């Protein structure tokens, strides 16, 4: 059994750790509220952007590479969004695990993989195994505040690399914020924008339908419509409806042609300037918006994960203090008893 002095030191140490973790919990809680508000504030824009893109994609026959891809699936860029700091439970590890699993599978299939790390922790965890595959690291995305202009810079960089032919497919990994207690790591296809799936599904030709949809229904809608060939004017419920539904309509209209379809609901929208120009402007912007969304979701998730982790840590520290105090009191009592016995027996001996 440890000496009394050591026990006292130990208790003091756990107590100060507890103070730190409970302070971190409070800070994370305050930041979480802000991050959550920001993520919510950004949602309408992202959703309407998706609808707009779906509408455009549905009525534009010739699609630029950002939309339809480079026609190959050989080189993959994995954008791994993590936090810059640890002490937030399994938050970083969960995201990196997802990315690493996909990466290993792609490498096994003989494809090239590169990592684009948003956040220091992602780089730290990937460095051991994939050090030479990390092509860029962006740090301090959320300090002092997440800003859209940063997301735009990253999007511009990724677009430039895509146009330079550095990769064919780009996927982003981030954690979707569900609640302070649960965050869900997920993969989001950025390029080609037409399919929103994990890279492993990218090869089979039936990407747009059936497969696993890890995304919101409205995004699945984009995929469904693209599948339905060139033109449609008569989607019953633009921007809504599940993928199955829009797929059916899309395929039907692909044959029926454009003109008569407008009688069903409404005509194809007019475009100012041409739809190709709008699409060319919209796609890089959409990339920035998706990255922005990932950053915000990640930020909220990180704070939530940290709050939970620090809450647990504070509770564990409390338990540890109780246990150590018990041991301490017992040993002290034992020491007192021993002393008493010594005094009594010394007295009797006299």
């Amino acid at each position: 059994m440890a000496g009394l002095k050591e026990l006292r030191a130990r208790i003091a140490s756990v107590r100060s750790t507890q103070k730190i973790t409970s302070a971190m919990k409070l800070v994370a809680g305050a930041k979480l509220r802000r991050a959550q508000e920001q993520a919510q504030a950004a949602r309408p824009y992202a959703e309407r952007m998706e609808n707009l893109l779906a509408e455009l994609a549905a009525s534009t026959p010739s699609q630029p590479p950002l939309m339809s891809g480079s026609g190959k699936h050989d080189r993959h860029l994995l954008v791994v969004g993590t936090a810059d700091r640890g002490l937030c439970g399994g938050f970083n590890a969960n995201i990196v695990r997802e990315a690493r699993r996909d990466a290993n599978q792609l490498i096994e299939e003989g494809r090239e993989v590169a990592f684009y790390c948003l956040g220091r922790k992602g780089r730290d965890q990937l460095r051991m195994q994939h050090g030479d595959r990390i092509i860029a690291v962006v740090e301090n995305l959320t300090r002092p505040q997440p800003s859209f202009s940063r997301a735009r810079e990253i999007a511009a960089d990724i677009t430039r690399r895509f146009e330079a032919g550095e990769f064919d497919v780009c996927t982003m990994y981030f954690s979707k914020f569900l609640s302070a207690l649960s965050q869900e790591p997920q993969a989001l296809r950025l390029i080609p924008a037409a399919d929103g799936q994990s890279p492993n599904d990218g090869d089979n030709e039936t990407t747009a339908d059936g497969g696993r949809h890890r995304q919101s229904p409205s995004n699945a809608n984009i995929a469904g419509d693209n599948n339905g060939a060139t033109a449609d004017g008569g989607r019953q419920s633009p921007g809504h409806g599940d993928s199955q539904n829009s797929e059916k309509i899309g395929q039907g209209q692909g044959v029926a042609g454009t003109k008569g379809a407008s009688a069903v609901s409404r005509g194809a929208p007019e475009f100012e300037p041409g739809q190709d120009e709008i699409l060319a402007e919209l796609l890089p912007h959409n990339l920035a918006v998706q990255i922005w969304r990932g950053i915000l979701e990640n930020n909220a998730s990180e704070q939530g994960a940290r709050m939970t982790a620090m809450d647990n840590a504070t509770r564990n520290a409390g338990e540890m203090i109780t246990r150590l105090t018990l041991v301490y009191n017992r040993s002290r009592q034992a020491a007192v008893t021993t002393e008493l016995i010594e005094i009594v027996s010394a007295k009797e001996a006299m």
Partner: protein
Amino acid sequence: MASEETAAAPESGRFRFELATPEALAASGDYGLVIVPGSEGDFGVLAGHAALISSLRPGVVRAWREAAGGLPPDEAPEVWFVTGGFAEAGEGRLTLLVQEAEPVGEMDAAEIGQLLRNAREDLEDVKGDDEAARDEIRAKIALLEARLAACSEQKN
């Protein structure tokens, strides 16, 4: 924040107008007339506008709660300066997706003028033939000029 209690009420000659930026929903509500700075010229949107998708140039968005027979009424509109983006009209609604939106009433002409002078100096300071840097500053100047124009127009 978006609220559902003011769902589209087309019969009143108004339509749902939303001004969204990546960082927040800058405005949303039922309006009668909105004039939008399209990339090929300003256009006004009334209730029942045909489906239209347009890109935007930097400029001012003016919005009136009520339209006086399809014309701008006498009262002062709500005015925002936007830095380009996209507009989508149709089905009793108008959605503007812009990169930034700033109420013109909160803009400070003197400050913008100062920024503009700084940017012009920066342009002269670019050395050699770094055209990319020059283009970047020129784009910035164009944006500032548009802001200043929006600001002075509002004051008059």
